[in-house]
C-alpha cells in the first residue's frame, strides 16, 4: 500500500467521488443507448 500520509482521506475522497461521477455518466449513457437501440429494433422488427 502506498503512503498517503495525513491526506489519505482527502485524496481517496477526491478519487472516489470523481470515479463515481464518471461511472454514473458512463452507466447512464450506456443504459440510454441500449434502451434506444432495443426500442428501435423492436419497432423496425414489427413494421
Amino acid at each position: 500500500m502506498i503512503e498517503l500520509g495525513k491526506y489519505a482521506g482527502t485524496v481517496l475522497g477526491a478519487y472516489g467521488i470523481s470515479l463515481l461521477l464518471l461511472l454514473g455518466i458512463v452507466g447512464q449513457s450506456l443504459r440510454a443507448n441500449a434502451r434506444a437501440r432495443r426500442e428501435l429494433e423492436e419497432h423496425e422488427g414489427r413494421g
Partner: protein
Amino acid sequence: MSIWEYANPVKFMRASGAVLPWVAGGAVVCCVAGLAWGFLTPQDYRQGATVKIIFLHVPAALMAINGWLMMLVMSLIWLVRRHHVSALAAKAAAPVGAVMTLIALITGAIWGQPMWGTWWEWDPRLTSFLILFLFYLGYIALWAAVEDADSAADLTGVLCLVGSVFALLSRYAVNFWNQGLHQGASLSVAPGERMSAVYKYPLYLSMLGFFLLFLALVLLRTRTEIRRRRLAALLARENRA
C-alpha cells in the same frame, strides 16, 4: 470525400459504430493508466499526497471548457448548415461537459480544504467554473423543456452562442471583481507551473484519457439521440398513415 459526408445520419452511425470501440478502449486504457500512474507518484514536498488530485482536476477542467467549445462549434454548424447530427452532438455533449465541470469543482474543493484551509474560495478560476456549470445547467434544461426537436435545436443553439459570449465576459468580469477585493492572491494552480517530469507525464496521459473518454461518451450519446430521433420519426409516420 469531405467531412460533411458524416452529417448524413446513416454514414455517421456506420462510422461512429466502427470507431467507438477503439475510442472507448483507448479511453479506458489511458484513464486507468494515467490515474493509476498519477496515484503512484511520490508526494510533493509542499502539498503532500494531495498533489495526486491534480490528475483528476486538470483533465476534468480541460474537458469542461473544451466540451463547451465543442457545443459552440456544433451549434454553429447546425445554425448555418442545418445538419441534424451536429445539433444532436451538441445535445449529447452537454451532460458530459456538466459532469466534467462538476468533477473539476468538487476535486478543487476537496484539494482546497487542506491546502487553503477552506472548501471554497471566491477565486476567479473557481468562480468562473461555477458560472460555466450554471450555463451547462441552463442549456440542458432548455433542451429538456422544448418539445419540438428542431425548435429545441434552434433555441439551444442561439442560447449556446449568447452563453459563450457571456461565459467569456464573466471570466474577465470575475477577474476584475476579485482583484478589487484582495490584490495578489496567489491561489493559482496553473498546469505546467514549474512542474517536474514526475507529475507531467502521468498528467498528459490522464488528459489524453479524459479526452478519449469525452469523445467516446459524446459519440455514444449522439448515437442514442439519432436512434431516438429515428424512432420518433417512425412513430410519427405510422400515426399519420
